[in-house]
């Protein structure tokens, strides 16, 4: 298989500390740190989920993306005194169970749902493309959610610029992004499965 796991030299607790620092800076508004956090996190998730979904290598990247979007949408539920590993693991596990339940093959599993918390133990940077098509999913959103996401999150315009471009109020733009990403998460999990 082409996807190889790049064994990182850092220990899980080093990774926890580094990721947590980046995440907290992101929560304070540092978009660069947040991007770096998401990149590193996706590599860890890829290795973590890849090990547990070895039967379905095609599902791994889909699930990585689903987890990333879920963690982004739920980032307000992280408490800064809590180990990031526990938070990430709980969400990844929740999304994985969701996927397995949808496949209704839970009884065939050996033991992928272990309580091993080592989400950050390994990191796999080589990503295959997910089958899901973001552009197509965005098209299914109503305009008041799609336009804010396209202008702010893809084209990189500011909220104010988007507001004047679309004729929406600034708070409507923010709400549109928020609700749109939640709606996307629902589509990631449900309707998007082939």
């Amino acid at each position, binding site marked *: 298989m082409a996807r190889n796991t790049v064994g990182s030299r850092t220990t899980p607790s080093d990774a926890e500390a580094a990721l947590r620092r980046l995440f907290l800076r992101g929560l304070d*508004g540092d*978009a660069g740190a947040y*991007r770096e956090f998401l990149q590193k996190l996706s590599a860890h998730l*890829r290795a973590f989920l890849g090990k547990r979904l070895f039967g379905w290598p095609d599902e791994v*990247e889909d699930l990585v*993306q689903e987890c990333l979007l879920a963690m982004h949408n739920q980032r307000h539920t992280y408490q800064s005194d809590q180990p990031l590993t526990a*938070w990430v693991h709980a969400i990844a596990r929740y999304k994985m169970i969701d996927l397995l339940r949808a496949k209704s093959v839970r009884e065939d599993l050996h033991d992928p749902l272990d309580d091993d918390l080592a989400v950050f133990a390994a990191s796999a940077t080589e990503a295959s493309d997910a089958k899901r098509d*973001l552009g197509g999913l965005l098209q299914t959103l109503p305009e008041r959610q799609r336009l804010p996401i396209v202008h702010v999150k893809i084209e*990189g315009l500011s909220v104010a610029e988007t507001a004047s471009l679309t004729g929406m109020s600034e708070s409507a733009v923010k709400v549109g992004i928020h609700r749109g990403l939640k709606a996307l998460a629902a589509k990631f999990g449900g309707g998007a499965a082939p």
Partner: protein
Amino acid sequence: MKTDDLVNLLATGEVAVPRRSASGRIGLAVLAALPVSFVILFGEYGLRPDLVQAMFWPMFWVKVLFPLCIAAAAFVTVQRLARPGVRMRHAWWGGVLPVLGIWGLAAFVWFSVPIEERMPLLMGQSWRICALSIGFMALPVFAATFVALRGLAPTRPALAGAAAGALAGGVGASVYALHCMELTAPFLAVWYVSGIAVPVLLGASLGPRLLRW
């Protein structure tokens, strides 16, 4: 779609989240819903006429406080269940112990009175409406807590729903206790506990459907 594209999308624009923006939501939900329960109490039921007098009887306080203990424990439990990776720990015991306590008290009373007095103690005057009324009183807190939970991220939705139900049922039973005339432990042990169990079961069955994210 490439994962890097998704990462870029998520990390572009405003990424800040106010710290602790999630911490007060369930508390606010309860505070917002509580007045509605009191509106139901005053509008549909009314306070018991001898409320001031009843405040001097220990059983009255047992009746008000045992559901409140359940509600408090359920509040702590639901707060934990609403956040990924936070362990439930032993908070749920705080909800079970008051029930065991009232059952123990009820058993003691039951066996210490003559047989012919037992059924009246158990059924009281209002057994028909008690559990249903408690469920009715619990409804505002139940709905508000579910709305708050939908903005959070419970990874065990059935448990979170059950805990939300216990919170609502405990609050509902305490409010209803201000109307209800019954004061016997066997009555509380059966009808109050049933009244609280209704929203718990409802929450456990609705949780997986309504709390998905």
